[in-house]
């Protein structure tokens, strides 16, 4: 697989959210606005790429039985770094994302990629894979956030188009499920016609 393909596959063909259905909790939980989705996506990308690098570097030093705990520790460290840095420098976003920042640690996507990819491939590929998947994740979250923000508040990235409120339901929990459901249906159809 060429590195470019490796990188681009995350956007649509193997999009972690739309196609692989991984990391759905943050995808649903934080996407009340496009910006929140974007922020969460970047945070996840950072963790993904960093832990991919570290894992691919030290993979041969890890005995099997403690492989998963070790990976988890590595990932958790990066998550905590994100947590601390974000709280220090982006306190508003930190508040908005809330519980879902520490939960990056259990995002199936991160651990899955560390295990499936980084623990087997060389560092460069791992980085590219991490970036591709991360951006795909970011793309998905931003898109879902934009849709929900547009329908729920009549705005995108905070810029309002309408007076008053939109359809509140899209800001609330049901809207997350419904929005994602129809987005996946849409992506499926697009993929098929391609």
């Amino acid at each position, binding site marked *: 697989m060429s590195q470019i393909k490796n990188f681009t596959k995350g956007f649509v063909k193997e999009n972690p959210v739309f196609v692989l259905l991984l990391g759905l909790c943050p995808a649903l939980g934080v996407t009340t606005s496009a910006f929140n989705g974007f922020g969460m996506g970047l945070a996840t990308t950072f963790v993904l790429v960093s832990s991919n690098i570290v894992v691919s570097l030290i993979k041969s030093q890890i005995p099997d039985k*403690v492989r998963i705990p070790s990976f988890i520790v590595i990932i958790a*460290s990066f998550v905590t770094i994100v947590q*601390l840095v974000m709280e220090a*420098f982006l*306190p508003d976003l930190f508040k908005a994302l809330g519980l879902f920042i520490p939960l990056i640690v259990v995002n199936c996507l991160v651990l899955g990629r560390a295990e499936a990819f980084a623990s087997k491939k060389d560092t460069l590929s791992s980085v590219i894979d991490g970036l591709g998947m991360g951006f795909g994740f970011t793309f998905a979250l931003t898109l879902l956030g934009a849709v929900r923000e547009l329908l*729920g508040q009549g705005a995108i990235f905070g810029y309002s188009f309408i007076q008053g409120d939109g359809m509140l339901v899209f800001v609330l929990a049901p809207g997350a499920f419904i929005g994602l459901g129809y987005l996946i249906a849409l992506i499926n159809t697009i993929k098929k016609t391609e």
Partner: protein
Amino acid sequence: MAKKESSFVNMVMTLMVVTAVASFTLASVYNITKGPIEMAREAARQLAITMVVPDFDELMTRRYMPAVGRDSLEFNYAYKNGELVGVAVATYTDMGFSGRIRAMVGFYPDGRIVDVVHLEHQETPGLGDKIEKGKSDWSDQFRGLDPSETVIKVTKDGGQVDAITAATITARAYCDGIRRAYDTFSNHVLNDGGSAE
């Protein structure tokens, strides 16, 4: 590329090393960010205070227990040129629609409300979150009210505050928080003869 086998020593060593390295790194990051995090928190508090009291050059902080309620309130006395110009009370209510609402209420020394800003809440976006200054001007109606004259309750409950449409519960709760602040304020500030000391 031979994998290490899972012997006892290997396992413990590996995990120990990994955790040690991880915690070392984290501790470093923690130490670096500790300052900024506190600054950010402080800045947020400062911002809220400046929004609800007149211009000041000195702050003094005290905590008082309210007559009703589990936790104490934080009183920020604001002085300009040594003179008390206002008190910013960080108050709370547990009557909100979902969880505790915290707000900062500013009083003139005579007990009139300067302004109110929310600090923290989990009310429903689009409904209860209209208490936020940025989302709606609903909370502006408290400006200049004197709680000793105006009943800080929603009209449905016989007060003089207009409720938020379709979010009476939140409005009711917000009033409760403001009253808690005022009652404590009047106990500790007004009844003390208007001075903090």
